[in-house]
């Protein structure tokens, strides 16, 4: 039945439904109408009979009163002849007058009477006047009367129904014609859309219903939207295709079976496969991946995703074996492609050529652990190797290892006089020289490790050796260095080396080993260079070194606890002309609350690269003080380390802090100790020039104590010379000191510099300085150092 209905057209369905409804309405309406007609007709017939009986009784009354039965019979016959009455009887005193109607042809089918089922209706009426009974009239009415009316009614209803049916048929034809034609056009348009053709506009009949019009508009709009979306998709596709083709990474798209469906040009280049040839081939054939270390095929990430054995997005590294057999380091990432609710329909594999990156990583790794200049292991690598050796000692207590801290002597001279390039070349040469002198591997089979710790410092780790053997090897290295002559142009240099030797002890760490070896090396330098000193904790120099080392760890804590204070000492004009000014002094306050001299602090700061931090702190603290104490209008001299003035960023620090605290630059004088190591003389010159341009003064401190005094005096644009206190302290008693101070003062005058003498501890010295013509003096005789923030008068 459902199939049959499904095959019926809409027109047939509508007609069938209409005819069915009409027939049902006719059948049920007919049955109901017939039943109602039978009831109503029966009642009407009965009423008619009663009414006829009443009328006939009235008609007969006068005749009966008059006793005129002839007239009465005539009236009865007349009544019957009028039609509709089957028979009439008049009964009086046992006498009956009866009149019957002749049989009549109803003029309609006999079945109709049988269908209606009406019988004659009889009624009687008594004729009584003034209480006297004149007789009884009885009559029967033919059902023909009602049947005739029903027949007539049926005919009219049939006519109306026929007319209504015709009108309905015409109306339905028109409606179906209009609507079905519109539907057919809609279907045609839909078919066109299904076949990918444009529906080319849907023209509906003029009287098409609004639903069809709305559907046509919706179809038009849907087509327009689909077309726009297709164009958008094509645009997107074009964009993505261009993007994929332009992208440097290889992009391969597979279907749900892991077969290649798309490759971008980068993928073709990387895999050495042509995209057309690779199409439909398994991904593990087109882009096989092997483990870099194991050299074995790895489970392909695409297949892992397809089999649900991997997260939806994975990234890994492997080697790609190309069609040509080459192996390319790649980083792969995969992502599944989901098609709505249909689940996984493919995977995107992105391969990134890692060749360069991995080479770069290898280089970076090498650089991380090797000195780029000499190619030797750097400080970090050496420390790591020492750590491993220390752990070995813990595991194998019988073994003994030694470490040598090698510091070249006079290397700075080469660097300063021949330039950095020459210095670098020399460092490479020395490194090769030392490598050539390394001993053979020890009993453990481990070769000695020579590394560059930084600058002109090297480290040598010797395995399975005792102190004496290590001493011999160290001495041999010194001899080799000393025996090497470096030539640069017309100049020849013979360098030396100081070596600190320390035996490794289990339980210590590399930093301790390095510090101890450094301390021993420092002692070797102090003791005349070109020698080896073994680390012994009882050495004073080593203790000092240890103290410096302690400052390294203590400095952060002192900063945090606010234990650094600024003091000042006045520097006064010797001859009374000019304004006095102050030198700012850094004073740490120890845990006992005592202010201590900062000697080892400054040495440690300089030695371990902490000086710039200290210098910045001092500068900021001083300028903050001047900002907060506008009554203090004096000039101040601040000591700077060689590392600080070599720092190109420090210029900006000075400028910004001066601006921030609104302190005129002319109130600042920077002092650089002549013994400080200036690593980058050009950077120092730029700094001094910048400071002088700002208006700050620049002073060469401790002039005369170092080897490079005159070189600095010449290279650095100083405004002031501060004569080293070592020449001033005994000026009143040592004639030679007088000569030196006098000479320096003369140089200063010749160069137009202001000269300052420090360590002026009595009046005799001051008098001598006045004789010599030194401009300013500083010392306990003139002013005891005091805290920068002087106690208030009321305190």
């Amino acid at each position: 039945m459902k199939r049959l209905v499904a095959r019926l057209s809409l027109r047939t369905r509508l007609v069938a439904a209409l005819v069915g409804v009409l027939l049902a309405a006719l059948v049920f309406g007919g049955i109901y109408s017939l039943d109602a007609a039978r009831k109503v007709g029966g009642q009407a017939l009965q009423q008619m009979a009663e009414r006829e009986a009443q009328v006939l009784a009235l008609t007969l009354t006068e005749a009966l009163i008059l006793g005129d039965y002839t007239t009465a019979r005539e009236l009865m016959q007349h009544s019957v002849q009028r039609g509709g009455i089957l028979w009439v009887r008049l009964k009086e005193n046992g006498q009956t007058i009866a009149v019957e109607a002749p049989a009549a042809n109803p003029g309609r089918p006999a079945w109709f009477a049988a269908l209606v089922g009406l019988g004659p209706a009889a009624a009687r009426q008594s004729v009584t006047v003034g209480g006297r009974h004149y007789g009884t009239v009885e009559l029967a009415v033919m059902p023909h009367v009602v049947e005739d009316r029903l027949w007539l009614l049926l005919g009219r209803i049939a006519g109306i129904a026929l007319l209504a049916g015709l009108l309905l048929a015409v109306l339905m034809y028109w409606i179906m014609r209009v609507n079905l034609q519109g539907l057919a056009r809609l279907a045609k348009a839909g078919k066109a859309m299904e076949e990918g053709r444009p529906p080319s506009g849907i023209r509906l009949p003029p009287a098409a219903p609004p639903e069809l019009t709305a559907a046509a508009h919706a179809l038009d709009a849907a087509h327009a939207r689909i077309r726009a979306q297709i164009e958008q998709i094509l645009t997107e596709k074009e964009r993505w295709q261009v993007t994929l083709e332009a992208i440097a990474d290889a992009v391969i798209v597979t279907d749900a079976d892991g077969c290649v469906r798309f490759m971008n040009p980068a993928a073709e280049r990387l895999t050495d496969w042509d995209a057309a040839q690779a199409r439909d081939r398994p991904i593990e054939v087109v882009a096989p991946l092997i483990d870099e270390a194991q050299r074995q095929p790895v489970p392909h990430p695409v297949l892992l995703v397809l089999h649900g054995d991997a997260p939806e997005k994975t990234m890994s590294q492997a080697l790609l074996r190309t069609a040509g057999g080459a192996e390319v380091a790649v980083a792969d990432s995969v992502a599944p492609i989901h098609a709505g609710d249909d689940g996984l329909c493919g995977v995107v594999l992105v391969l990134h050529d890692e060749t360069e990156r991995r080479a770069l990583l290898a280089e970076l790794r090498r650089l991380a652990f090797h000195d780029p200049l000499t190619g030797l292991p750097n400080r970090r690598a050496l420390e790591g190797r020492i750590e491993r050796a220390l752990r070995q000692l813990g595991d194998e207590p019988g073994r003994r290892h030694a470490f040598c801290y090698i510091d070249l002597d006079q290397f700075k001279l080469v660097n300063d006089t021949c330039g950095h390039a020459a210095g670098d070349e020399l460092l490479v040469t020395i490194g090769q020289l030392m490598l050539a002198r390394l001993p053979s591997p020890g009993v453990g089979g481990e070769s000695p490790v020579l590394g560059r710790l930084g600058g002109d410092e090297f480290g040598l780790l010797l395995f399975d050796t005792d102190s004496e053997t290590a001493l011999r090897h160290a001495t041999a290295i010194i001899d080799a260095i000393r025996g090497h002559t470096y030539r640069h142009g017309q100049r020849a240099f013979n360098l030396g080396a100081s070596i600190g030797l320390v035996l490794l002890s289990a339980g210590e760490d590399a930093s301790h080993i390095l510090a101890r070896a450094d301390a021993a090396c420092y002692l070797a330098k102090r003791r005349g260079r070109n020698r080896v000193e073994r680390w012994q904790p009882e050495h004073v120099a080593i203790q000092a070194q240890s103290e410096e080392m302690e400052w390294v760890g203590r400095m952060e804590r002192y900063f945090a606890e606010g234990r650094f204070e600024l003091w000042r000492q006045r520097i006064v004009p010797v001859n009374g002309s000019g304004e006095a000014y102050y030198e700012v002094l850094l004073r740490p306050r120890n845990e006992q609350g005592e202010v201590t001299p900062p000697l080892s602090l400054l040495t440690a700061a300089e030695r371990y690269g902490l000086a710039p931090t200290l210098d910045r702190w001092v500068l900021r603290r001083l300028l903050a003080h001047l900002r907060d104490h506008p009554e203090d209008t004096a000039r101040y001299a601040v000591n700077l380390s060689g590392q600080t003035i070599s720092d190109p960023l420090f210029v900006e620090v000075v400028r910004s802090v001066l601006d921030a605290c609104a302190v005129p630059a002319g109130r600042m004088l920077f002092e650089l100790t002549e013994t400080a190591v200036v690593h980058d003389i050009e950077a120092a010159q730029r700094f001094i020039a910048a400071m002088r341009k700002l208006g700050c003064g620049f002073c060469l401190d401790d002039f005369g104590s170092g080897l490079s005094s005159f070189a600095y005096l010449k290279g650095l644009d100083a405004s002031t010379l501060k004569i080293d206190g070592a020449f001033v302290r005994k000026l009143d008693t040592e004639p030679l000191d007088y000569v030196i101070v006098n000479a320096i003062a003369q140089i200063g005058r010749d160069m137009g510099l202001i000269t300052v003498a420090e360590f002026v501890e009595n009046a005799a010295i001051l008098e001598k300085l006045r004789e010599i013509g030194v401009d300013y003096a500083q010392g306990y005789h003139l002013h005891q150092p005091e805290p920068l923030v002087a106690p208030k008068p009321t305190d």
Partner: protein
Amino acid sequence: MPFLFALAALLLAPSSHAWQAGGPYPFGVLNHRSPTLTAEYWNPILAWVSARSGVPLTLKIARTANETTDMAARGELAFVYTNHLFTPQRDRLGYSVIARQEGEGIRGQIVVPAASAVTRLEDLAGQAVAFANRYGFTGYFVPYDALLRAGVEVKPVFAGTQEAAMGLLRHGKVAAAGVNHQVMADYARREGFAYRVLWQSQPYDDLAVMAHPAVPPQTRAAVREALLGMKTDPEGSKVLDEVAARLKLPAPRGFAAAGDRDYDAYRSFFRATRVPLESQ
């Protein structure tokens, strides 16, 4: 001729009528109204009188007053309520008065509609005037005699009964009507008809209840007694009230004692009238 008529009546009477053989006594009523109204009025009265007197009476009327009078002339009626039997010829039939209709008497009238332009009898000259029938006393003889005596020639139209004549007048079929003043008044009241009297006669006794000579004296007496006592009898009075109301009469009318001498005025009229009596 009248003699022969009376002789024949006497000869035929004893043997030709069922009532004389013991059947119910036919009680004829002069047709002043339609047979149905007449039956509605008289059937209850006759039923009560029959019950009271023990004399079975049955109403017998003909289609017209003439025919009723003819029935009486033929001896078919044992009792008759009429005033048609006082002509010289019918007076010889032997019917005798046993009672009369209670009332002030009846007059003959010539009436016109109230809105009529006719104001004098002379205005009726040449016009149609309705009468009940040629037997009617106040409905024909008395008013027509007046017209004749006034020298007014009219076109007599006989309607059959008095109310039929009044109906012709009401519907403008005739210019005037000769009527019994009592019947006219009753009709006008019942039908709401406004009329105007052009002329009226002297009063005459109302219609008489007459008995056929063959009616036994005790039967006649029983009927007479019942009729005269009807108005005073509670049930009889009730019957009179009901029939009067049914015909919308102004008051119930009983019966009063009367004898043949009481109707000599009729007989005198007939002797002097200018209306041709012909066979009456």
